[in-house]
């Protein structure tokens, strides 16, 4: 008897980051390009679609493929080459940022762009073209890719750089994994003179002050990020705290060899010297109802009123949330979603004032707001603007789903009317017409044309792709 190429043992529920959506898929974990080709063959023969998945850290359906095949690339996790002289590293797509920084920092380098978690894989980082708290200065991660090799669904392997196969370079990076699979990625690291950053923290009282402070701090710092208390209304609308950080210059850190060690970067395993960190999210759960979380935000704001200047390790500054393992579980059974909007500097304040006020009026406040400064980039499905972004976390409950959905649709109207954009690793409810509005017809056409070229049979499709681009 012919063996079933898709046995149910492979069928697995996969989730988004935030645990608010799960979809069943046949899961494969190849360790080589040859094995990826095999999975493509199985999918073609059985008429299934394939989605690429890294660490599964997208907040939406980017790495989900209900009923289809999912290729989890986390087992392709070898660093292929590292040159501590030039800071050039070549790695497989399943290498995550943790492996990356821990490899390069002791030699005096740091990834030029990192996400807010170090568990994202390089393949995922390129697919979504992630940005960090330094987007205004360093652009997205794609700008630090010297070259990559990719396997296309056609079976062809292509090598791309900004000057060679440039059209594929600028579209596969940001292409949501819909054009091909990164097989190896070559990145330029940034030279460091210390394992520490000089961090300035100070409060801002209003939305106007908030955005003005980010805009003012950005040019003088290497990183700038704001925390926004999205539960404060009235005169306190948009209040929060700004963190700006600078690299230390040569000589400013008396012991760079020590501070650049991995052990020095890592935060303690226990909180208050007693509770294991893995248990912290249990303590957070009871606070996850609006009135109590409002108190938490207020306490945080009051604590932030004391400005500070201090030195902090890179890992602690960038990956704070990773030190509360499974923090997202604190949001309870319904999980969480994130709504992030990118707005031009001219329209951001008015549009966000509207969003924040609307969420408070609807009784659906965001529990966590994060602001950043951005600049545009050349990648095809770019989310960046010359302006700011505001990421808002929302708790999902059975009772709030429909109300929240209706509100986010109103948000989309406000943001697109203000010339804003969205990020395909974040928003989960974006409708095709909204994507069309911010990307523009020519970009969608170009993306589709490239897809016809690299993937003529539409082998690569994710739930995200079908939801947003399926009907465009």
């Amino acid at each position, binding site marked *: 008897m012919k063996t079933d190429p898709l046995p149910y043992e492979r069928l697995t529920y996969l989730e988004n980051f935030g645990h608010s*959506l*799960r*979809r*069943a898929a046949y899961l494969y974990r190849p360790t080589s390009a040859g094995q990826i080709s095999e999975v493509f063959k199985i999918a073609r023969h059985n008429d299934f679609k394939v989605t690429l998945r890294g660490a599964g850290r997208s907040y939406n*359906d980017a790495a989900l493929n209900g*009923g289809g095949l999912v290729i989890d690339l986390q087992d392709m996790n070898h660093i292929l080459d590292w040159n501590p002289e030039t800071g050039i590293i070549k790695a497989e797509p399943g290498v995550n940022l943790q492996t990356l920084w821990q490899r390069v920092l002791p030699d005096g380098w740091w990834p030029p762009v990192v996400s807010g978690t170090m568990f994202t894989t390089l393949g995922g980082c390129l697919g979504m073209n992630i940005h960090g708290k330094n987007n205004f200065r360093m652009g997205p991660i794609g700008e630090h890719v010297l070259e990559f090799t990719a396997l296309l669904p056609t079976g062809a392997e292509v090598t791309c750089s900004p000057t060679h196969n440039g059209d594929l370079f600028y579209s596969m990076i940001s292409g949501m994994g819909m054009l091909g699979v990164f097989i190896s990625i070559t990145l330029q690291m940034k030279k460091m003179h210390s394992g520490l950053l000089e961090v300035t923290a100070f409060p801002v009282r209003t939305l106007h002050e908030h955005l003005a402070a980010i805009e003012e701090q950005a040019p003088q710092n290497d990183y700038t990020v704001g925390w926004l208390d999205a539960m404060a209304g009235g005169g306190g609308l948009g209040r929060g705290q700004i963190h700006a950080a600078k690299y230390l210059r040569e000589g400013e850190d008396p012991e760079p060899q020590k501070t650049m060690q991995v052990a020095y970067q890592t935060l303690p395993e226990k909180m208050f010297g007693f509770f294991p960190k893995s248990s912290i999210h249990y303590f957070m759960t009871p606070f996850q109802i609006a009135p109590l979380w409002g108190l938490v935000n207020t306490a945080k704001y009051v604590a932030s009123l004391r400005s500070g200047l201090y030195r902090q390790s890179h890992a602690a500054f960038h990956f704070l949330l990773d030190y509360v393992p499974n923090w997202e579980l604190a949001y309870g059974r319904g999980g969480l*979603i994130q709504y992030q909007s990118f707005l031009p500097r001219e329209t951001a304040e008015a549009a966000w004032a509207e969003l924040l006020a609307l969420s408070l009026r609807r009784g659906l406040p965001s529990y966590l707001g994060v602001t950043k400064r951005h600049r545009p980039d050349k990648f095809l499905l770019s989310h960046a603007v010359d302006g700011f972004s505001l990421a808002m976390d929302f708790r999902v409950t059975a009772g709030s789903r429909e109300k929240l959905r209706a509100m*986010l649709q109103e948000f989309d109207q406000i943001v697109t009317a203000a010339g804003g954009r969205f990020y395909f690793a974040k928003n989960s*409810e974006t409708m095709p017409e909204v994507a069309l509005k911010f990307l523009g017809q020519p970009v969608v056409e170009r993306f589709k044309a490239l897809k016809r070229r690299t993937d003529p049979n539409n082998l690569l499709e994710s739930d995200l792709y079908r939801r947003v681009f399926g009907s465009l």
Partner: protein
Amino acid sequence: MSPLNLPASTPLRPLRTAIVVGASSGIGEALVRRLAREGYLVAAVARRRELLDELCAQVNAVCGETRARPYAHDVTDYASAPLLLKQIVQEFGALDLFVYNSGIQIPVAVDEFDFAKDLAMYETNLLGALAWLNPVAAMFQALQAGQIVGISSVAGDRGRVGAPAYNTSKAAFSAYLEALRNRLTRRGVTVTTIKPGFVDTAILRSAGAKKTFWVIDPDQAAAGIWQAIKTRRQTAYVPGQWALLMLIIRHIPSFIFRRLSF
């Protein structure tokens, strides 16, 4: 949007999915309507294509989007059941609920012994169920989640003079469901056995039963079944008063039961 024009499943609109086998009429049809109304995307599986098409068109018109899709299939075509299951899961992207509702009752006289009739009832009521439930169980076991609902019958609780093979097919189905439950509970899967009493469907009419009582219409049956699904019951009599009556009937001693005419 998928090529099938199915609504997207998102965190704020997670789509629950169900398969109802035996969906063209009676309890199955009512259950398709009910599940669609409760927000499920339903695969309506049955032999009679035109009835399914009409049902799905009506459901989708009421819901304003695709909530039911027709799949023509004969449950006695055992080999095609696992393939159709795979196809539906591929198209729907998940499966939360599986309902086996197909069932026939062919009237037999109290002194009639007809193997052809018995075999036909076995094929639809039991063998078709096994052909579907084995792969469904394998799938839910792998996913460590899911709910299986078998529409058995109060008729399976005792063997009676009027319907030996029908009684046996339902008794065997109930026993199979119990075994499945014992296998799958530890894997996070719920198996619900539904035992309807008299429901005003083609079966009841064709069975030519004269002494009927507590007769409910298919919509009421679907409401009772939905309640059992929602509360993840193990076994549910529909309507509930049958539980008490069947408790009594199950305990009628044989020396009396032999002399009864129903």
